[in-house]
């Protein structure tokens, strides 16, 4: 039997269909990955809980008022000054800190990794240094985030410096490598351990107070 020639299918409109789909996906989807400043909220406390006593020199008071003015330790400053002041405060190391559970410490020791001025009027130890951020209801969110960002930058700076001294890699790089999780399990475990140590040495302690 003679084979019949099958008629050629016209594929000219294929491109049109594909374009239509392409445009549909371009319109309905987004490319951006959500990113932002991560914070952990304090747990809800019972009504009549004993308030922890914190020495005044261990508190770094940042106040933003309703006009977005910045008051740090009772003096006017600008947002760009926050980082430097916070670093000086956290890294001061003027006394003994709280015992660090991660290192099995029973007594508080002095901060051997701090490079601060050891001013007796400033903080004792990074794990005692509390940054108190007081805001008003009408403070703008943009300003609040800017200050939070600067405080975060201060901690990142200190952690980076410590990681650089101890392990020769910056803390940010270590965190990034951990999130990519491409190395073998043993290396990952070491990395997680190192990050934990750095975090224990410079814990992020931010207390937020909102006034009405």
């Amino acid at each position, binding site marked *: 039997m003679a084979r019949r020639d099958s008629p050629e299918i016209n594929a000219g409109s294929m491109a049109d269909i*594909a374009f239509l789909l392409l445009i549909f996906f371009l319109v309905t*989807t987004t490319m951006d*990955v959500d990113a*932002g*400043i991560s914070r952990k909220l304090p747990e809800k406390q019972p009504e009549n809980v004993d308030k922890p006593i914190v020495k005044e020199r261990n508190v770094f008071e940042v106040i933003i008022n309703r006009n977005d003015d910045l008051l740090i330790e009772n003096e006017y400053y600008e947002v760009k000054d926050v980082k430097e002041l916070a670093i000086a405060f956290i890294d001061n190391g003027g006394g003994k800190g709280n015992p660090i559970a991660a290192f099995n410490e029973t007594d508080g020791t002095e901060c051997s990794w701090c490079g601060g001025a050891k001013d007796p009027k400033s903080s004792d130890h990074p794990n005692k240094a509390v940054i108190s951020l007081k805001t008003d209801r009408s403070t703008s*969110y943009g300003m609040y985030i*800017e200050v*939070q960002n600067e405080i975060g930058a201060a901690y990142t700076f200190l952690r980076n410096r410590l990681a650089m001294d101890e392990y020769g890699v910056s803390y940010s790089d270590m965190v990034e490598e951990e999130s990519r999780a491409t190395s073998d399990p043993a290396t990952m475990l070491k990395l997680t351990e190192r990050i934990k140590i750095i975090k224990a040495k410079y814990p992020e302690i931010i207390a937020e107070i*909102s006034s009405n």
Partner: protein
Amino acid sequence: MSKFNKKKKGMAPINTASLPDIVFMLLFFFMVATTMRETTLLVKNKLPSATEIKKLEEKRLVMTIYVGAAVEDEGNKNGDKIQLNDKIAKVSDVRNFIYMSRKKVPEDEQSYMTTLIKGDQESSVGTINDIKKELREVNALKVTYATRPAAQ
């Protein structure tokens, strides 16, 4: 007018058989690299910029709360609005929203859930604090303030 009637000769038609392939390739790229836009914004949402940012990789473990003035509110006269899913909601609805979002993920992953607060930079901290208070009530303590990367 013979000029127009003249038949062109020797001009082979361009082969467009591979055009669909090219377009399909583009299509697949976009399908893989993007995510569906799941909500329409009802509030103004110009995010503040920051440098110390962390990316949120697991989309399904993120609960998003939008805060800002309503889109049709010229000059932000009526204050901040909170948007949950596809509608404007009250602060007291945040609890329910968190409970509902938690139901959608397996129990063992619920502790990894993060609340992403997408606040407009013009909105006030008071509104954000009200939300945070609600989040503390329902023990949703992991919070990320959405920002856009700062131009350095």
